[in-house]
């Protein structure tokens, strides 16, 4: 495959080698990755519940999404950075791990969906967003992001 040299190169960088050779760096980065995951989950779910007509339903969707947004961006960036660091320490293992590619697939679609379809819909005033459309967006968002988390957890096993 065309990406193998890229993976080999990332694995041979100083960053990758340092993390691999350290006893505690990998676990510590994993912990940050997990904390950011919880925060990302919270900032997505609080808005997706609202789109489903649940949770904080007395408040405008635009307000909730605007309040959650900095934490969504912050935790997503933190996940991407720590994820890249974790991956760089063992690039050959993940290259041959099917769940890793599942995760990357889900991640690409989830990011694309969140910052195009979902973000556009969240900018609308509540009256303009049909409930059915809102619900569909929430279900897609939850399924895509849970898909990322689900396949991510399997990388350690396969």
């Amino acid at each position, binding site marked *: 495959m065309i990406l193998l040299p890229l993976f080999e190169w990332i694995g041979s960088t100083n960053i990758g080698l340092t993390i691999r050779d350290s*006893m505690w760096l990998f*676990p510590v980065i*994993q*912990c940050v990755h*997990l*904390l950011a*995951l*919880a*925060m*990302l*989950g*919270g*900032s*997505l*779910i*609080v808005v997706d*519940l609202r789109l489903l007509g*649940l*949770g*904080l*339903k*007395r*408040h405008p969707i635009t*307000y*909730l999404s605007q*309040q*959650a947004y900095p*934490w969504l961006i912050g935790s997503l960036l933190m996940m991407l950075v720590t994820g890249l660091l974790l991956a760089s320490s063992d690039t050959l293992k993940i290259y041959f791990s099917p769940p890793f590619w599942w995760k990357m697939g889900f991640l690409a679609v989830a990011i694309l969906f969140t910052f195009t379809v979902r973000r556009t819909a969240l900018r609308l005033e509540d009256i303009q967003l049909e409930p059915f459309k809102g619900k569909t967006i929430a279900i897609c968002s939850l399924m895509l992001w*849970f898909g990322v*988390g*689900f396949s991510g*957890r*399997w990388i*350690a*096993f396969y």
Partner: protein
Amino acid sequence: MSPLELFEWLQNTYWSMAIRESLILYPLILTTHVLALCVSVGLIAIVDLRLIGLRFSNVLISEVTGKLIPWALFGFTLMVTSGLLLFYATPLKAAQNPFFQIKMFALLLAGLNAFFFHAAIYKKAITWDSLQIVPFRARLAGCVSLTLWTVVLVSGRMQAYNWFN
């Protein structure tokens, strides 16, 4: 029967071995545990951000707890169920792991913090419900909760490493 004897007996039961040695069951329960964590700790963090006064200041405190905590409890139930199954799969190894002991202690403290917030402070919430700046005790409860859940997550993740055994 001492706890260790009990855990040893548990470890040798059929289903404990079945989960431990399954290439599907163990990862599946672990995945459920992490996704449930995402729902419960994620929503608890949102409630804590409101208590501290950092986000969602238009939402009443009674509303943010009343509407979001039930969903957090839903995730929490799933997390405890899958957590018990994971413990059941490797009881001896888990119980002797210092990270697991720290995790259980922090979990207990997080529970007590939530209980005292509801029992003592929350009653007064009606009076300061709509205030955008919440009293010190509520802010403290939010900070303590965030700190304790961070300890729970970190020690839970570190449990995979048997540095001290």
